[in-house]
């Protein structure tokens, strides 16, 4: 199945636009693509006519150009006929927005559509989905652009069974400055499923990290997924719902009772180095960390702070996530002391966490981060930056990112996320150092790299 025409189409038809109702989902999709996206878009409705001065085509075969992607937003009963027409007309693939299939008990109708497509090797996303957000080419979400919070272009692909969850994560991505390469809502996933998308994004040159929200897999599909994800050179992150135990089915064996659906998923994921995100906060932090660093760590954390309290809280957060904060040798402590400026030399504490105090200047951060990045005992450095201390400047992010490029050891920053400190945050993010808005979030980012390996 070739999914390329789905994700980067040059031409798109929207089937089912309304001639009367401007708020019809198909009209929202037609309008936003017509005005703001690169693909050429054609409205289709079996009554023909015009829509905002554009010709409405009665049939897909009437569209004067070859159509790469058809967005199908007609009543469920009509979908098999419309899809057959698309196949007949040589369309490259489809997104079926319409609901009224397996989710409402019409599994039969859904199976009919899927087998029609399968026989013709015709890829389609859905039904019952939002479809594809692939700027600057297309956006099949039936949500007005001005209502959406759109993340920047970037390197993370998001795939979600739920459309609502997907849009919500896009909002969080925008808030955290995480760039998105593509977002796909797959709904009932009657044909194109997680495995197909994993395959596609593994080979997609615009994607570095692949993240999924999954509600359930088919028979043995979870196994195939983790095996394939384990071979994928890009980090694969999965948030899976269904942690609470299922119904009260009598279970006659201890194994069946203790190896519940979620426990098995979690074990299989870690066995093959698939990064399990336990909640949506983790998913967002993991995407940010792994889009900056495609590498794994043992989890020996060096912490640089200007406040004893932040240092102590970070140590607690590390230990509750199974990360360690190794004690530094007397010799290393003495070496660090030599490297910092005289004004902090006698008031700072040099055991891990290294507390540079509120008198620290940029050079002190840089010197200590460089030292920690060079020693074997530490394999990831957390920098807890409080931008209100007088000696630090907005140059710090850019300077620290240089250390990562030289030493290759991941650096993670915590900066309070308020508008006032935006320039500090950008200094890190534009230089591909992830920034968390809480200490816990920074520790999550380190955890992402520890989970990003088979264990």
């Amino acid at each position, binding site marked *: 199945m070739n999914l390329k025409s789905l994700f980067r189409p040059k031409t798109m038809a929207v089937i089912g636009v309304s001639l009367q109702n401007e708020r019809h989902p198909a009209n929202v999709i037609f309008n936003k693509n017509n005005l703001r996206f690169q693909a050429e878009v054609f409205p289709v409705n079996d009554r023909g006519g015009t829509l905002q001065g554009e010709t409405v085509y009665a049939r897909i075969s009437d569209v004067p150009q070859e159509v790469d992607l058809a967005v199908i937003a007609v009543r469920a009963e009509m979908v098999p006929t419309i899809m057959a027409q698309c196949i007949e007309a040589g369309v490259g693939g489809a997104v079926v927005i319409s609901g009224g299939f397996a989710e409402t008990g019409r599994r039969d109708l859904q199976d009919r559509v899927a087998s029609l497509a399968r026989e013709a090797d015709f890829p389609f996303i859905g039904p019952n989905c939002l479809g594809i957000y692939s700027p600057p080419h297309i956006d099949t979400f039936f949500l007005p652009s001005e209502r959406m919070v759109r993340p920047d272009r970037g390197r993370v692909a998001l795939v979600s069974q739920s459309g609502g969850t997907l849009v919500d994560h896009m909002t969080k991505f925008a808030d955290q400055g995480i760039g998105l390469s593509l977002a796909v809502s797959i709904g009932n996933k009657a044909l194109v499923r997680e495995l197909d998308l994993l395959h596609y994004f593994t080979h997609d040159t615009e994607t570095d990290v692949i993240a999924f929200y999954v509600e359930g897999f088919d028979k043995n*599909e979870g196994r195939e997924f*983790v095996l394939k994800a384990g071979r994928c050179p890009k980090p694969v992150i999965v948030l899976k719902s269904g942690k609470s135990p299922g119904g009260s089915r009598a279970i006659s*064996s201890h*194994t069946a009772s*203790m*190896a519940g659906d979620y426990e098995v998923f979690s074990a299989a994921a870690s066995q093959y180095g698939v990064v399990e995100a336990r909640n949506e906060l983790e998913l967002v932090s993991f995407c940010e960390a792994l889009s900056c660093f495609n590498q794994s760590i043992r989890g020996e954390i060096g912490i640089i702070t200007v406040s004893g309290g932040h240092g102590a809280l970070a140590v607690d957060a590390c230990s509750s996530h199974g990360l360690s904060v190794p004690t530094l040798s007397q010799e290393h402590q003495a070496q660090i002391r030599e490297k910092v400026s005289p004004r902090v030399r006698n008031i700072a504490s040099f055991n891990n966490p290294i507390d540079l105090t509120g008198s620290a200047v940029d050079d002190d951060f840089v010197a200590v981060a460089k030292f920690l990045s060079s020693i074997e005992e530490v394999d990831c450095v957390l920098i807890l930056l409080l931008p209100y201390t007088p000696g630090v400047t907005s140059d710090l992010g850019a300077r620290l990112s240089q250390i990562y490029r030289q030493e290759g050891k991941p650096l993670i920053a915590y900066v309070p996320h308020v508008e006032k400190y935006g320039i500090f945050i950008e200094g890190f993010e534009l230089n591909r150092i992830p920034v968390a808005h809480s200490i816990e979030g920074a520790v999550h980012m380190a955890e992402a790299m520890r989970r990003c390996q088979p264990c």
Partner: protein
Amino acid sequence: MLKKGIREILFASKDMGWVLEPQAKQLFSMVGLDVPRFSWAKAEAEALRFAQEIGYPVVAKVVSPRIVHKSESNGVAVGLEGDAELVDAFRRFSKVEDFAGVLVEEMISGVELMVGAKIDYQFGPVILLGIGGTGVEIYKDITLRITPLRQRDVEFMVKGLKAGRLLKGYRGSEPINMGELTKLLLTFSGLVTDLEEFIESIDLNPVICSSTACVVADARIMLREA
């Protein structure tokens, strides 16, 4: 490919939905897993003869197609020290419904682990390693991996147990034989792969591990509904 003997046991147990312990043990010993020396005695004399042959103390367990969970039905007697105690247990067990004999076994001592398997709908065959005994579902100290298990998976499984230190020799006890545990888990993983179509789940609880061996002291195989 399943051995003929294994097929026969599965076929014979099909209607019942699970495999009686003596037959489950036969099945496991056929693939090379260690089980205690045992005898499935239908009469008192048979039980006594076997106990005298292997020497006391022994364990006696009721065998009945009606009893899946023996402990909960008071169907297990451990540490029987002589003929009188064994006869006592035999007579008590023989009153249960559909009594099908008594399993007499040698006593094994060591760390009690649990090894299990289930066929998961989404992930296929899954292997469990945990701290065993009757309290398994209270402590829930378990780790899971999907098949096929590799040597490194076994290492991570042991590392993943909260009570993993018990296996490494805790407060003066001898460490368990990791080579034997690894061998058991890898053999079991292979067996479960072969049995995927036939079973729903397997509990080996306890598996008793010492510095010399890992022995399957109790076994329950739940078959898939046809």
